[in-house]
């Protein structure tokens, strides 16, 4: 049971035992973060660069904090305002940064597959912080950790993911992770927000929210990504809230102890009732944010270990 990945590009590439290793280490970091001694030096002397080609506050802050707590030198670049505007291609940007010899590169990009492309051009470890509608692996991992801590296990659970599945990388990574760990995944949303061929993903699809929520252990709400909408996917916000917004009444169809999750940022009154989101007995939304830092620390720790091993193997190769 070892973690041998060079990059963290998606859940698709991870084996179930690697996911478990990652979550076990995340658990340790989560406990450590709750103690006073938050900082360590496992990444001391290493450089982490955050490249966000798409706006982000929380994910970027979470990665930044995770890196700092591990003792890395962290630099964040707002790529929207930089060379991209001057016409530099992604590959050129990657080569430029690679020449600065970073150890960890955290990348978010609006196009699916862009982080994969970038990872092929650099020597360091790359973490996908979200690429287009493709994957957002650390979000799925932090969701998994939150579920595991709340439910005591991460298998044989019934989990509903609700809302804008079509435009959501969070949904894709979660479907894959929860499936790999042998859970039942249900997707709930209007058909205009369901990707084509989704039934072949090994999930159950529901258009009626109450039916979809019946007896589930976990309700995972997704943000209705207004900025992704070309227009015309749903008739109006209020009709959406009426049919697919999570409120106390709809939640009664789930198990009594079902937890409510949301990757944030929330649109209160669009996809989730504000009071429900704040209900500490049901909502684990704040805990998700907390687990985010722990999961990112664990991911970077493990990638740094493989990076060191690879480098020392290369050094030996040079000497031999």
């Amino acid at each position, binding site marked *: 049971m070892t973690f041998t990945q060079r990059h963290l590009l998606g859940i698709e590439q991870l084996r179930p035992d690697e996911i478990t290793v990652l979550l076990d280490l995340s658990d340790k970091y989560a406990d450590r973060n709750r103690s006073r001694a938050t900082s360590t030096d496992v990444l001391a002397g290493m450089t982490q660069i955050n490249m966000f080609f798409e706006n982000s506050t929380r994910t970027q802050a979470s990665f930044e904090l995770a890196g700092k707590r591990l003792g890395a030198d962290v630099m964040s670049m707002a790529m929207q305002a930089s060379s991209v505007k001057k016409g530099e291609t*992604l590959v050129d940007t990657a080569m430029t940064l690679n020449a600065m010899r970073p150890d960890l590169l955290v990348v978010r*990009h609006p196009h*699916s597959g862009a982080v*994969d492309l970038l990872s092929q051009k650099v020597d360091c470890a790359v973490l996908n912080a979200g690429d*287009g509608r493709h994957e957002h692996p650390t979000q799925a991992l932090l969701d998994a950790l939150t579920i595991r801590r709340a439910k005591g296990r991460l298998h044989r659970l019934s989990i509903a993911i609700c809302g804008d599945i079509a435009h959501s990388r969070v949904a894709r990574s979660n479907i894959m992770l929860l499936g790999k760990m042998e859970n039942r995944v249900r997707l709930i949303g209007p058909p205009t927000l369901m990707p*084509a061929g989704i039934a*072949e993903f090994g999930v159950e699809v529901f258009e009626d929210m109450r039916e979809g929520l019946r007896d589930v252990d976990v309700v995972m709400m997704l943000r209705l990504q207004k900025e992704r909408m070309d227009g015309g996917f749903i008739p109006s916000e209020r009709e959406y809230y009426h049919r697919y917004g999570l409120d106390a009444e709809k939640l009664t169809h789930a198990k009594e102890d079902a937890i409510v999750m949301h990757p944030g940022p929330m649109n209160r009154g669009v996809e989730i009732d504000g009071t429900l989101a704040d209900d500490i007995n049901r909502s684990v939304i704040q805990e998700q944010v907390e687990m985010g830092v722990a999961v990112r620390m664990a991911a970077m720790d493990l990638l740094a270990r493989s990076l060191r091993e690879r480098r020392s193997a290369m050094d030996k190769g040079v000497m031999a």
Partner: protein
Amino acid sequence: MTTLITNARLIDPEAGRVFPGSVLLRNGVIAEVFDTPDPAIGTDHVPQDARIDAGGKCLAPGIVDIGVKICEPGERHKESYGSAGQAAAAGGVTTIVTRPDTRPAIDTPEVLEFIRRRANEAAPVNVLPMAALTKGREGREMTEIGFLMDAGAVAFTDCDRVVRDTKVLSRAMTYARALGALIVGHPQDPALSTGAATTSGKFASLRGLPAVSPMAERMGLDRDIALVEMTGVRYHADQITTARALPPLERAKRNGFDVTAGISMHHLTLNEFDIADYRTFFKVKPPLRAEDDRQAVVEAVRTGLIDVIGSFHTPQDEESKRLPFEEAASGAVGLETMLPVLLRLYHSGDLDLPTLFRALSLNPARRLGLDCGRLAKSAPADLVLFDPDKPVILDRFQLRSKSKNTPFDGARLQGKVVQTFVNGTSVYRSA
């Protein structure tokens, strides 16, 4: 000039047969076809140095490739008439029918004459240009169809930019009908396909890529066929790549409309899963389809419902491909690789050689009213001699095109062009 090619396996797409024989070429045409491998012709008639022993290899009418993009004018660094002509000769393509989607578009007789002159100077194979159907390919005003025909345009097309306004298209078609011009359409509903990089379905959803329903092709074809019925124009659909578009095509033909259809080599040999981890060399237009669709269109080529196979040769430089999949340019080069790639369908037992050359040579020539594409007496001596069994591993950097964007880099193929003749003259001979 006289040449005698002996000891060949002759592929006759008109008669649908393969037989051992030999061919006498004289003054640029096929002077005689013999059904014996070594006809008794004395060296006083054909001297020793004008004889080619084919060694049992296949001899077929040269390929007529409709829809080749050569990037002159505008982007000569991607492809020129010289480089494309060399690639064509090495691929057994004896007639290139070029697309007008250059920068600027080929939409005036002056530009058309310029490129014809360039082509004749630089390319060792026949080059016939298509012209834009609307000015600047903008879908607003029709081009000077009459003048363009006088200047040598063999067909009219806006390529992958679908004319959205049906009124504009119906008028252009009505006008074209009066002149007997052929219109080449790109059947695709323009609204549904906007921004799409893949075909919708499990694969596109898994990769999170913007996708278009395969139904968009049928919708585009339905519209165009209705306009054909309305105007009576001669119409060719550039690429029919989905199973759902085949019944309307079949119906249109059965109803006697002057409609034909083509398909690209890529849609016959690849499917959407080949894109794998965002490999942009597999990004083509329309996007690669599901395997069920691929099998359906191979069958449609076999039955003749789909008439023409083309390379849809589209050179792109490394910069326009080395981008995230959504941003990357579409298209692949194919002039040089088309024959070996399509021979996969021969080796798999899907298509026999006469059927393949019916779609590669005979049908496209007929559709454009050309005399070539046949292995018959008095036809132009445009021929390809090839070894269908020779194993090759494709190396994209060996291609003659200036651009190397082939999805078949490293592919194991079976088949190699040995020699190509245009008007009786050898324009390529493999090392």
